């Protein structure tokens, strides 16, 4: 290891990140390897039933401590969970009713979705994927704006800069590099911006995953890479995706710390992500957090999950529902009574119904807009093509009128 005693050979010095990791590990009395490798077990604060796990069974230890968030934060997370679940299920229904073209649901993964949003400051950034609707909404983006792309109206319905949320990314893993670039720009300007970069287990196999973690480590930028390992990439199970002991074990290969957390445990997810964001901000360093979770519904409505997994497996995961676990925990702790729970459900219902309302409208998009954003100023060629379409549209109107 990079013990300063055994100085590296000339020309083979490591980046500063390495010495920072070394210092951190020393402060915990552990080796840098122990610091960078995930703890010996998943970080878990709530058991499957929603009871607080004794500290010595949480998986934490020196260099792997994760303070449990304050009560208000936990309650806020619960409210977001309830709203997220409601949105997932309503969108799923809208698809079946043909009112929505496609929706990749995160039902079952809501603890990850909510944690990703709640761990960030307003000035931070988030780079979500196609499945992270609930994260983006939890971050404060108008649900309707988020749904624009799934409705097929336009590609991205919100302003990424206004919300500091990247456009939800379909080309897998590409967004991790954007996250690194955003953090790097901030760092060069001396701003303390943490960026949360999200992807799935399947997406970790793409070359961009490697390049993003490596760039982040070498440039020492505060990016928290957050992998939602839901066990499948469409039909492909994790065992056909990776032979690694865990995806969190990838961190050490870049000189960063990795941690694996129970992704269906809202408390643990939030605790781990908040700590990661804190470390990233304090030390201007990247970290990797893998949350082990499960996608309860099909990949999208176009998918037939019965082809690749059995009902039994899905049922087993139902027992670990993040929403129920959190509800049981908060109730047990006396943080949530029927009243409060009712108010939260009501609020979620409101969000959902106003989204449903809005979704029934089918706004007429202006076909000519397809030429408007390609370049800052349209080229002569595009103006000509625009004129052609305009002419076609006008003739069509005239024809209709004539009929």
């Amino acid at each position: 290891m990079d013990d300063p005693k055994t100085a590296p050979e000339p020309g083979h010095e490591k980046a500063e990140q390495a010495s920072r990791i070394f210092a951190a590990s020393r402060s915990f009395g552990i080796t840098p390897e122990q610091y960078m490798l995930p703890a010996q077990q998943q970080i878990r604060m709530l058991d499957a039933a929603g009871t607080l796990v004794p500290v010595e069974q949480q998986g934490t230890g020196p260099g792997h401590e994760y303070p449990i968030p304050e009560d208000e934060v936990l309650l806020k997370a619960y409210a977001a969970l309830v709203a997220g679940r409601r949105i997932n299920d309503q969108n799923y229904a809208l698809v079946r009713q043909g009112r929505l073209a496609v929706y990749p649901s995160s039902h079952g993964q809501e603890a990850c979705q909510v944690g990703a949003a709640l761990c960030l400051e307003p000035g931070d950034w988030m780079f979500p994927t196609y499945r992270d609707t609930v994260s983006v909404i939890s971050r404060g983006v108008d649900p309707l704006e988020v749904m624009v792309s799934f409705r097929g109206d336009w590609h991205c319905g919100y302003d990424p800069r206004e919300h500091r949320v990247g456009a939800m990314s379909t080309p897998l893993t590409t967004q991790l590099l954007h996250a690194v670039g955003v953090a790097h720009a901030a760092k060069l300007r001396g701003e303390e911006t943490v960026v949360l970069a999200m992807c799935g287990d399947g997406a970790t196999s793409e070359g961009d995953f490697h390049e993003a973690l490596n760039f982040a480590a070498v440039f020492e930028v505060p990016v928290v890479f957050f992998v939602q390992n839901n066990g499948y990439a469409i039909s492909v199970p994790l065992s056909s995706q990776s032979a690694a002991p865990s995806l969190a074990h990838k961190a050490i290969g870049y000189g960063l710390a990795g941690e694996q957390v129970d992704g269906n445990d809202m408390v643990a997810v939030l605790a781990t992500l908040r700590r990661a964001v804190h470390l990233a901000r304090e030390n201007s360093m990247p970290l990797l957090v893998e949350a082990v979770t499960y996608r309860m519904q099909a990949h999208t409505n176009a998918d037939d999950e019965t082809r690749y997994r059995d009902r039994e497996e899905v049922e087993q995961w139902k027992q670990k529902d993040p929403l129920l676990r959190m509800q049981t925990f908060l109730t047990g702790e006396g943080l949530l009574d029927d009243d409060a729970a009712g108010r939260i459900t009501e609020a979620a219902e409101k969000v959902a119904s106003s989204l449903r309302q809005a979704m029934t409208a089918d706004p007429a998009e202006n076909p000519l807009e397809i030429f408007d954003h390609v370049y800052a100023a349209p080229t002569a060629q595009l103006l000509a093509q625009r004129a052609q379409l305009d002419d076609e549209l006008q003739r069509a109107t005239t024809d209709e009128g004539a009929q």
Partner: protein
Amino acid sequence: MSTITATSTTTFASALNTAMSDAMEADESVVVFGEDVGTLGGVFRITDGLTKRFGSNRCFDTPLAESGIAGTAVGMAINGMRPVIEMQFDAFAFPALEQIFSHIAKMANRTRGRVRLPIVIRIPYGGGVGGVEHHCDSSEAYYAHTAGLKVFTPSTAADAYLMLREAIDTEDPVVFFEPKKLYWSKAPEDLSTLRQAYESESENSRRIGAQGQAVVVREGSDVSIVSYGPSVATALKAAEAAAEDGISAEVLDMRSLVPFDEAGLIRSVEKTGRAVVVAEAQGFVSVASEIAARIQERCFHSLASPVLRVTGFDIPYPAPKLEEHHLPDVDRILDALDEMQWED
């Protein structure tokens, strides 16, 4: 072969599926791999049943990485296999472009013909299916421009079968573009007849085959509508509509972009004296550009009017609600015909 039931009606999708299955049956060095092609049978089910029938050594899922898929295909082909790989959607082949451009296209030439790579890269392409962004691109131009690759794109179920078998049998790498909006189209086609016809050909003619032969899918005398893949159906419809206006349009399906059937193209345009090229991809620096350039180069003195192009606009593919305005349609082809000088 008995397990594949050939009926007298088939879909484009099952023609492709049967072609792979027959090729795997005929040659055990044929292997199929990619994302979700195994257990799931592909997101479009084109590889459905192959793993079950041939085992997971012959048809298997890979980790999610397209450069990895293309790059390992190179290695497998170097070592005696004939890989048929699937890119899930057109735009998701982009991570594999370095492997495709720098190795798959060049390996035979680099090694002075000692190492040929009989790889088939299957790519569902085109729009018209309401797909969200990054799911509807038509990127055949990138590949057609790259020397060393062959580029096929069938527009009928029969061609889907025959051309995929040819692609698998050829010693050269083939990028095989499948118009995804045709996948579920039905055609009165008997796959077992096609199979017999194909397999009775000599090995040599199979390896070279009808490759690069354009086909006249509708005879006409006034104008040639030159097209391929998903646009052939639109071209045919436009030809029908034009007939009502008294214009006899010939429709040519190029089928193979590389090799390119210049002779077939010239034959048609010299006969008709006019040409419109129809393709979905944005038109700038596209296959349609090449066809137009080539027609005027070779048929200059037969042309009564400039060669026009009806293509997608020069914009990123629009969202589902707006794609109808982007894609070439019958009216736009008729407009192009109108623009031609018909006085003479």
